[in-house]
């Protein structure tokens, strides 16, 4: 559909001095959109606060708006030499395509230069006019709304889930093209920024088309990944959950989504995919009396019954079973018969199929909180997919009125195992549900979703972290890939052993928001798992890990003292987290025969290292007393205000081979302690939604990025007057989201050749992150928003060359711009 963008380039302020002699600048602006549209404002002479007041319009195609950003370039006019660049602004116009979104965009945008950072602000207006036209074979998919928040947007009602959608594009990375050898850094960085922005637009547009095909109107829990494969190119992936949502009737006037399905037709080649998908599925175990009603069954309809959301409306989940996960190690340069994109597509399909079969073997029919990640090191990459296998209520969509009483009747049933006691999918100790005494429950449940309000918890939650690291030989290609894939199962096992051990010692039995990250370095492999642990009432009380001493040569006294240590630690945790149960003698002194199978965790003492392992299971002294969790909500605590979102970046230079678990633990403790110190003035606070991102570079440095929100509880409302609130939560405590204004997705590169002069790499990063946040705020404000939820730094790569005093950093951030009411 053709449309018209009306643009106003009004004025700028606080421009840098480009002409030393007159201490001012002669600024003008170039505006570009796509390949054909170009406009140039007149030169405003000798001013740092120029006013152009230029208004003009571009005629564009709708699909162009979905892919192309509006490019604004501010320059300093030079009569004799070439004009000097002041900076650029990229504006995504997609939010304007959304029928419920803002109609115009208006505000000051910081002028960003990849070499100098923010240099003044420019006031831009843009308004979009789309001429209605219904083309059957359209390329554009405007009108499909994207939400990065992994939940049903506030103020909307879910009608149904339509399926898992994914898309991927591959392109050469401009940084690795031959032309880059002769190109100036600024041009190279700008080429990358432009390309990446465009690619992510393309992914969204294509996903949008798929969404229209399956007759959905939005994508929830949209996740975007940039896989920087170096010389192999750049892959932009997007996954999400297609769904139909409508605006809640209670909220002002009910704005129904336009019925997009009307003018979209399914082209023949897409139909085939649907047919094939049906043959993929065969769920005998799901024969359920509600199943046939309205044909709403998700699993029937979807090729992959994966949902990327982490929070679901109450009553939707029938039962959660546990984590399903699949990993695979691939070589990027394998010369097979497929082209590059096709082969990558195949990789992911393999993994998804595996996840699906895991899910089926657990007698589940849906995977919740699904994510796909990729870690790359040179030509080897590890693809991972994780989610929580679960059952959902088939009746949920069929009978909306019944939703409420459905869940009120048996709250504990979510914890009950979906499979039969006689046909266990794997060895598991079942016991009677502690709440109803009817159902069978396992002794622990691990999930990747946010805390479920339906499951009653006792006491407060806690952050649990497990780290595994292992040196590997320097190698490349096939050998390297094999080595990594051989080690993968051990790593997985070790991570879970640690998680389980820590969970038990905490006196808890359930994990929410479990996230595992695998990092590969040149000579180190590392896995980090983090989750929020809590004590769920339906599940049995944890029993103390058992210390088994196989070799009888150890002193009895030694073992006893270790045992005592564990008991003390567990008791302390029970008191601290308010878990309200006592370590009865039965939990401590288990008789060997009976409880052996139940005690999932045994600690076998073989050598001195095992003893160290026991200490590892306990929190270090520094971490005690810091309340933290990896989820948006903390079991047992009600937040009342959002104090601050923080991003902590730590890079250590060390021979990575020498980095062991203990050293990594020390680093994390140090970062947490630092945060604790920063917020020491507040009494009751929780570091919530903590998420770590670790990357290993070469063989000598590791970068750890910790993001989270500092939230207060039980204190009188601390009113923080913000223009724009940015949070990595999908909600704002004590506020209501009134309107979703669209996705903010910024891709930025910053480079400097004066690292030492500006406070070192620390100063460089500090400045860049501050600038990124400033840009995000400006984009939110221009859409008439006052907050950004589900902020996520999906990519942050820092490269440096100390000898040349050089540093480069690349960041991608996403989030949902919203308008909130307090």
């Amino acid at each position: 559909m053709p449309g018209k963008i009306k643009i106003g380039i009004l004025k700028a302020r606080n421009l840098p001095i480009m002409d030393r002699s007159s201490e001012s600048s002669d600024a003008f602006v170039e505006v570009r959109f796509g390949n054909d549209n170009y406009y140039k404002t007149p030169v405003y002479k000798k001013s740092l606060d120029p006013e152009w007041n230029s208004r003009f319009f571009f005629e564009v195609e709708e699909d162009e708006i979905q892919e192309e950003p509006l490019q604004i370039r501010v320059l300093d006019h030079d009569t004799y030499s070439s004009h000097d660049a002041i900076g650029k602004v990229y504006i995504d116009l997609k939010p304007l395509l959304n029928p419920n979104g803002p109609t115009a965009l208006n505000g000051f945008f910081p002028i960003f230069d990849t070499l100098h950072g923010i240099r003044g602000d420019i006031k831009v207006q843009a308004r979009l006019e789309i001429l209605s036209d219904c083309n059957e074979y359209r390329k554009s998919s405007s009108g499909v709304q994207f939400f990065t928040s992994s939940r049903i947007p506030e103020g909307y009602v879910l009608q149904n889930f339509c399926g898992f959608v994914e898309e991927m594009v591959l392109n050469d990375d401009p940084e690795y093209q031959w032309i880059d050898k002769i190109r100036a850094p600024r041009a190279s960085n700008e080429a990358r920024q432009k390309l990446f922005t465009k690619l992510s637009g393309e992914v969204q547009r294509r996903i949008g088309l798929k969404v229209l095909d399956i007759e959905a109107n939005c994508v929830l829990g949209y996740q975007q990944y940039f896989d920087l494969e170096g010389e192999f190119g750049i892959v932009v992936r997007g996954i999400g959950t297609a769904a139909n949502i409508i605006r809640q009737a209670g909220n002002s006037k009910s704005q129904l989504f336009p019925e997009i399905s009307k003018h979209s037709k399914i082209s023949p080649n897409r139909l085939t995919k649907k047919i094939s998908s049906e043959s993929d599925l065969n769920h005998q175990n799901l024969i359920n009396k509600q199943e046939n009603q309205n044909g709403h069954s998700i699993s029937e309809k979807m090729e992959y019954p994966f949902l990327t959301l982490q929070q679901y409306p109450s009553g939707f989940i029938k039962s959660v079973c546990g984590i399903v996960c699949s990993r695979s190690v691939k070589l990027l340069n394998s010369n097979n018969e497929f082209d590059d994109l096709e082969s990558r597509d195949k990789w992911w399909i393999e993994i998804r199929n595996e996840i699906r079969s895991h899910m089926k073997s657990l007698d589940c029919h849906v995977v919740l909180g699904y994510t796909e990640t990729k870690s790359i090191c040179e030509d080897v990459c590890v693809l991972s997919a994780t989610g929580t296998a679960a059952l959902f209520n088939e009746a949920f969509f069929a009978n909306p009125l019944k939703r409420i009483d459905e869940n009120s009747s048996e709250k504990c049933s979510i914890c009950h195992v979906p499979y039969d006691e006689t046909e266990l999918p794997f060895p598991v100790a079942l016991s009677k549900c502690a709440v109803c005494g009817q159902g069978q429950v396992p002794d622990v449940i691990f999930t990747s979703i946010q805390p479920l309000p339906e499951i009653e918890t006792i006491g407060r939650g806690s952050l649990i972290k497990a780290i595994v690291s292992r040196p590997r030989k320097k190698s490349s290609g096939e050998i390297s890939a094999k080595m990594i894939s051989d080690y993968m199962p051990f790593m997985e096992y070790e991570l879970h052993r640690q998680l389980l051990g820590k969970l038990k010692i905490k006196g808890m039995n359930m994990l929410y928001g479990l996230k595992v990250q695998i990092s590969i370095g040149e000579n180190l492999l590392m896995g980090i798992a983090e989750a929020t642990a809590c004590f769920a009432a339906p599940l049995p009380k944890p029993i103390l890990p058992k210390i088994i001493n196989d070799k009888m040569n150890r002193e009895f006294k030694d073992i006893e003292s270790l045992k005592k240590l564990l008991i003390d630690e567990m008791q302390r945790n029970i008191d601290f987290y308010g878990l309200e149960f006592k370590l009865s003698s039965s939990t401590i002194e288990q008789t060997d025969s009976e409880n052996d199978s139940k005690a999932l965790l045994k600690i076998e003492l073989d050598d001195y290292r095992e003893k160290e392992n026991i200490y590892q299971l306990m929190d270090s002294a520094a971490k005690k007393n810091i309340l933290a969790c990896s989820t948006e909500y903390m079991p047992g605590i009600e937040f009342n205000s959002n104090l601050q979102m923080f991003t902590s970046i730590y890079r250590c230079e060390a021979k990575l081979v020498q980095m062991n678990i203990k050293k990594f633990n020390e680093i994390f403790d140090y970062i947490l302690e630092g945060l604790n110190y920063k917020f020491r003035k507040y009494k009751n606070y929780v570091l919530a939604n903590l998420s770590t991102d670790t990357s290993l570079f070469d063989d000598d440095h590791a970068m750890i990025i910790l993001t989270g929100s500092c939230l207060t509880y039980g204190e009188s409302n601390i009113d923080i007057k913000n223009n724009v609130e940015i949070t990595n939560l999908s909600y704002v405590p004590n506020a209501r989201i009134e309107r979703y204004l669209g996705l903010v997705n910024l891709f930025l590169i910053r480079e400097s050749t004066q690292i030492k002069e500006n406070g070192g790499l620390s100063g460089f990063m500090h400045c860049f992150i501050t600038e990124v946040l400033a840009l995000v705020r400006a984009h939110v404000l221009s859409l008439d928003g006052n907050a950004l939820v589900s902020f996520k730094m999906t990519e942050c790569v820092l490269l440096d060359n100390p000898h040349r005093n050089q540093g480069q950093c690349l960041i991608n951030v996403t989030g949902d711009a919203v308008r909130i009411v307090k």
Partner: protein
Amino acid sequence: MGTVDVCIGNNLIIDFDIFSLWIDGFTIEQCKTEIVKKDLSVRNCKETIIFRDIMDNYHNFNRLEQYLQIPCRLREQLMFQVSEEMIEKLVQCYYQYNPYVMREILNHKLTHKQRKDLDDIADKTETRVRSCRRQFDNLRQIIRILDDLKGPILRNIEEYFCLPRSLAEDYTAIVFLARNQFDLSKRKLSYLVLDDFIYCANQMISNWPMSNSFEHDSDFNRDFLLSFKELKILSEKEFIDEHKRLVLHGMAKVLNNNMTKDCRCLILFDELFKDLSRSLIDIAYSLNHSKDMKDLFFDLFERFIEPCKDVKLIRNEVTIFLDEYRKKAHLVPDISKEYPKFSHTFDKYFTTISNCIIQMYH
């Protein structure tokens, strides 16, 4: 410690203890020592953690500084999310000056050369060079911005630098002293502190008409200064004797009323009257020459205060003298016939000058 170790938030977090240390030119290491000394609660924390927190703050301050130099930009900038109260607090702290340092800075012209020679001032006042440089730059920045603006200095300072009233008033005086290039560096004036000069400057600003635009290197209205020429009449022979008689008579009366027995001062003033009076009138007469204007404080000291001090007159006596001198000048017969606007002009001049002298007389 890592090579990168930072923590950034969406709202600007500022520790004002650290901010004031940064302003005073402490290095990160010195700042840490100071914080540990000051705050007992942080003693248990690891030093690296305190250090890192200070670094984060310093990173912010270094970026913030460009906006603090033009505080009205601080309100519109998008880089940091700062609340209005925070802005006020930051600006107020940043523009806080040390009176001893400022006194030294005013001794010289605000040239680029002096900026490099701030070490001496730093040594003399026991302040850090960085702090001196900030105070120097602040003053220079204010003067630079004000040079392009018209209207009263105070209003412009309040508007462009978002300073609270009292601080803005002080800066008004300091700017006034600096840009009219009053010479405060004479050794004989070294006993005077910054507050004395601020007081005197404010007297002039509020009592004497200003030009409202900074031209010909002076803030004063030129016609007004020229009118002082007419005051010369008072030192002419026919009037000075009469004036002297009236003043001494008046003083005797006042002293009598105050039950002061000691009449030594009457004798002294009797001797000094002609010199002092001539000096005061000469100063007025020459104010329209910019060089003489620059030496105003020195002239007042050398030609009035010093002679009085030499004979050990106390401040109270000088006050009475100046008061009587002013009052009785109007009563000198026939003086307004010679110059009709004499009373008005004389009062304008003399109230201010006598207030200055009294302030400086210590």
